[in-house]
């Protein structure tokens, strides 16, 4: 008889070997599927996946851009999630941050660029923070369900974005805002070290470090951990659950608002209802898989972007149905998640005999 047994004694290197083995196994199975369905050489398909993610400096920087975005949002979710406040509203927080940033670009175009960027940063964070503050105060005062509340806030943000898109429409009747300041580049991220997306990366990495330190070494981080574990314990320790809830979710929303700032100033240079593009939801996976450790989030974001871009690449290169490439990516993700099971448990044959 096969039984599931908990294991506690796996060493770090064994864990990583297990994870690696899972990926290899997933690739082997995918190879069989690829060959069976398309008769293509699986190695070539994999090669092109890699090419499509890391192939040229240009492609590599596009990957970095996407990773930075996802990472920034995941890091933003970490404080709220650590407090067991399920912020599903990153999408909306990104959008309102984006609106604030775009508004600055449109109305404050005559400020010096550095100052403009700082103003955009602050206002985007404030807007995102407000979008976190509202559900947080409702939760603290009225004990509303934060999952529903933050989700609803997303729809408000989307409607708000639609409004501003129409309001700022250029040219009239096009139904979109278009690239903002296409000639002056006001409010655009400057190139750093010759790279367009360097600033995106730097902001994301700084946030990774800051949030990690915040959660691990500050009093507020300690309060978040206690509130997340038990409200009773928090009260016992003299922590105001309400104040910590409001403060933490506001911070969480503010960081997601910064992600909106990056999305507008650092890549799209425009605003539309698809500015967030579902990243706010995918980042939830990032935050969870990384167990709210912001450094782990770098790896997880990279993995998810790799799978997404790889799927797009092979779909276009080999003329494979887009859905098949998604299936292949799904299998890889499934194996990676499955490997966690084998890290925590083992299967054992039962030795119980008949008497």
């Amino acid at each position, binding site marked *: *008889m096969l*039984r599931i*047994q*908990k*294991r*506690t*004694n796996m060493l770090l290197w064994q864990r990583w070997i297990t994870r690696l083995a899972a990926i290899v196994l997933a690739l082997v199975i995918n190879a069989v599927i690829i060959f069976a369905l398309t008769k293509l050489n699986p190695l070539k398909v994999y090669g092109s996946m890699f090419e499509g993610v890391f192939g040229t400096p240009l492609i590599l920087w596009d990957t970095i851009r996407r990773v930075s975005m996802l990472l920034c949002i995941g890091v933003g979710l970490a404080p709220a999630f650590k407090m067991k406040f399920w912020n599903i509203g990153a999408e909306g927080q990104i959008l309102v941050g984006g609106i604030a940033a775009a508004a600055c670009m449109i109305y404050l175009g005559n400020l010096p660029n550095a100052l403009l960027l700082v103003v955009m940063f602050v206002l985007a964070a404030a807007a995102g923070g407000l979008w976190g503050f509202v559900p947080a105060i409702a939760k603290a005062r009225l004990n509303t369900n934060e999952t529903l509340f933050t989700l609803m806030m997303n729809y408000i943000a989307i409607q708000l974005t639609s409004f501003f898109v129409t309001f700022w429409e250029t040219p009239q009747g096009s139904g979109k805002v278009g690239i903002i300041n296409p000639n002056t580049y006001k409010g655009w991220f400057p190139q750093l070290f010759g790279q367009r997306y360097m600033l995106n990366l730097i902001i994301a990495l700084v946030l990774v470090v800051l949030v990690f330190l915040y959660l691990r*070494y*500050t*009093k*507020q*981080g*300690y*309060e978040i*951990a*206690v509130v997340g*574990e*038990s409200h*009773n*314990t928090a*009260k*016992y*320790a*003299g*922590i*105001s659950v309400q104040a910590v809830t409001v403060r933490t979710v506001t911070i969480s929303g503010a960081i997601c608002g910064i992600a909106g700032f990056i999305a507008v100033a650092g890549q799209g240079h425009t605003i539309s209802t698809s500015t967030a593009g579902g990243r706010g939801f995918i980042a939830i996976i990032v935050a969870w898989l990384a167990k709210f450790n912001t450094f782990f989030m770098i790896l997880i974001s990279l993995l998810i972007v790799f799978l997404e871009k790889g799927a797009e690449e092979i779909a276009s290169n080999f003329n494979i149905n887009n859905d098949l490439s998604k299936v292949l990516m799904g299998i890889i993700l499934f194996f990676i998640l499955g490997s966690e099971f084998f890290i925590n448990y083992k299967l054992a044959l*039962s*030795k*119980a*005999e*008949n*008497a």
Partner: protein
Amino acid sequence: MENPVVNDYAVRMLNITKTFGTTVANKNVSLDIKKGEILSLLGENGSGKTTLMNMLSGIYFPDSGSILVDGKSAHIRSPKDAHDLKIGMIHQHFKLVDVFTAAENAKLGMRASLKSARAEIKKICERYHFSVDPDKKVYEMSVSEKQTLEIVKALYRGADVLILDEPTAVLTPQETDALFDVMREMKKDGKSIVIITHKLNEVLAISDRVAILRKGEFVGEIETEKADVQTLSDMMVGRSVSLNIDRPEVKDKSVRLVVKNLSVKDNLGVLRLDDVAFTAYSGEILGIAGITGSGQKELLEAIAGLIPTASGSSMIYIDPRTGKEEDLKKYDAEQIRALGISLAFVPEDRLGMGLVGSMNIPDNMLLRSYKEGKFGLVDQKKPLDLAKKVVSELDVVAPNLNTPVRKLSGGNVQKVLVGRELASSPSLMMAAYAVRGLDINTSYAIYRLLNERKLNGGAVIYVGEDLDVLLELCDRILVLCGGRVSGIVDGRTAKKEQVGLMMTGSQCESAETEAAN
């Protein structure tokens, strides 16, 4: 042809081993349960009693070894298998659906009509003099009613072997006696009963035979007639233990806390504490006795500033150094600490209130003092030093300091909590059910610590449930009943029956009637 051998054994467990990861919960344990006997399964916490019985009730499956039920080999893979073999277990945490009635709970998962279940329950109740209303919803029941229902449920499902896991932990002395009467009745009907416990008096009072486990291994069995408290505890602990609780004489008695007109209402506006008044002195242990839910929790939490009190209440704390008086009513937990009042509180719910289960020992040491760090950062060094000190002074057994406290055993969790609370040498120390679920050694270690605090001039308020212990440990005992004080007695002269009556009997009722008027 041979005559069939008469089988005396209801259940035989042979060479059972069960491991969880690296922890060996049961090692090569063999245990026989005879027909028509009451067997006590005795052992300290973490000795593997419950695990062993869970393998009979289908919760766990043994790694190795075999089980014979009524002489036949049995594979118990699920509670359903156990039920088919007529084995029923009453778990420490009840397995009842709150929103269902008694009858609905009993027939859950069975092919029976509600009507027949109701009738059957009535019959069982008559037979054993239970009073269970088949149509009462579980959430409306008291703890002892729920337990009765669990037993009725097991009987309704035809159990011949009944396993009770720490059944008396939640009962008053009177309820315990009633339960024991029922157990004797069931034994008369030829049923086999296993009672898991670590209370020696109960073992002696009820069982025919005692089997003892220690650290997952079977250490022996003994006819109850031939056993006494000392031999049992020695077998259980593995060496000779002293069973006397010290009660040093009170010295330097001075007023530390004067509580007057203290009333507390809960969220629903129900009066939980009604006009409570008492004085706590330095250098003494004031015991609080009462049935669970008589207001003990509210009393301590009100003093600690965790719940609001009704207007008119007053809790005057007198600072031993300055003689300054502060009314604690005006402050919450945070302000009390900010005022420099050294008040320690070991709450009943250790992992749900006193500690953070997912954090390690040093981080838990921070809980009451994390605000002391500079520049918005938490101090890393002090809690680490304190953690080391607590671990070494109180013999906390932990794989290492970084283990989340949730993964420690109950006794070690409590030591971490008590150690932290005592670290500040509190002038007022409150502890609720500080030894609940702890083994003998740890319990005595806790009593010793409370006594030390008393001798060093602390005022100690100790909420307990074991009357024998309260009477041995405390200088005075305040008895609560339905949120009112039904009396304060001298711990050196009071009798157990007297206190028991104050908890439940006429004195209590009169207090309740007064409250109603």
